[in-house]
């Protein structure tokens, strides 16, 4: 994305959440999720809850579904590691779960501390029995989220949609050359 141009894919993701009757969004922010979080916070029929750690969101969305609300978890790839044991709640109870994960540690990442969890994220999610979808282009993002929500809530399964760092744009640091 070039300077000043506003990407359309976050709004398309939000439209999917509304169309699929998602009522709760739990998040630990990422720059790549900022527009989507703003939309969710502003929507009168949606409750967006900021978490202290991503695993809280897994438990919170389990409770949401027990009470009849559909929810989606927004986080960056570093947060996937924080969720691992809490994913067992979802598997043991055969509950739906949808995570929308912005990827760090790839595509020109400046901060090497993001790389280990970024590399491990797809395998960790698959190992914990989430179905993993990866969007590499803006056009893929909304249809993949839509498919993941349908499949997870219709089939009581867990899935993650990874938004690649190339798609969201690499994070800029002032010290970069």
């Amino acid at each position, binding site marked *: 994305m070039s300077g000043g141009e506003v990407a359309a894919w976050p709004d398309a993701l939000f439209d999917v959440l509304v169309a699929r009757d998602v009522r709760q969004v739990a998040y630990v922010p990422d720059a790549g999720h900022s527009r989507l979080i703003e939309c969710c916070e502003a929507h009168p029929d949606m409750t967006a809850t900021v978490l202290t750690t991503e695993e809280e969101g897994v*438990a919170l969305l389990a409770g949401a579904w*027990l009470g009849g609300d559909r929810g989606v978890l927004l986080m960056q790839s570093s947060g996937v590691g924080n969720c691992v*044991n809490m994913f067992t709640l979802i598997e043991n109870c055969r509950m739906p779960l949808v995570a929308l994960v912005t990827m760090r540690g790839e595509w020109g990442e400046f901060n090497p501390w993001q790389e280990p969890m970024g590399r491990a994220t797809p395998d960790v999610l698959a190992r914990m029995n989430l179905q993993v979808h990866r969007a590499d282009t803006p056009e893929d993002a909304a249809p993949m989220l839509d498919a993941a929500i349908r499949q997870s809530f219709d089939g009581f399964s867990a899935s993650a949609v990874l938004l690649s760092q190339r798609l969201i744009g690499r994070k800029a640091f002032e010290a970069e050359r």
Partner: protein
Amino acid sequence: MPDSPVLDRREAVARLLRDRGELLVVTGLGSATYDVAACGDDPRNFYLWGAMGGTAALALGLAIARPDTPVLALTGDGDMLMGIGSLATIGARQPKNLSVVVLDNERYGETGAQPTATAHGVDLVAMARACGIEAPDDIRDMNGLGTLAERLRRTDGPLFANIKIDPREHPKVLPARDGAWLRSRFREAVLGKAP
């Protein structure tokens, strides 16, 4: 405070759940789950057997989804400490229908009674208050429990309470542990039969 009175956990939980009304109950793994099962099974109980640290956060999601129904997270000090950040999450969100009650024996009861941080003076009530959640002083007698039991059925929270309990272990009363069955039963009780 070794000289301060403490309560029996089974008597305390039985008092809290007597005449529970519409209350939905989420229990933390280990003794809290057994204590609630010992009061008599109910489809509106959601027993956790794992997911340590997640009890209060799960109850928050449920409370947001059912805003007119009182929701109780009942758990131990070990589970609460592992998920202590969820007090900040609850404090920020301010769900009026959520109560979080800790049975604090200052021990990890399931694993050999090793001391938790509360045994070393960590004050859960002060932490809850600092997160903007109303909380009475540590509850150590039946009067305090009676007041709390009445509050749990109201929806003018959020509320946090810490009940100091005797570390003595009781015979385990084991509810069902098939999570998929428990969640279906709970949803049917709360939402009606799935189409």
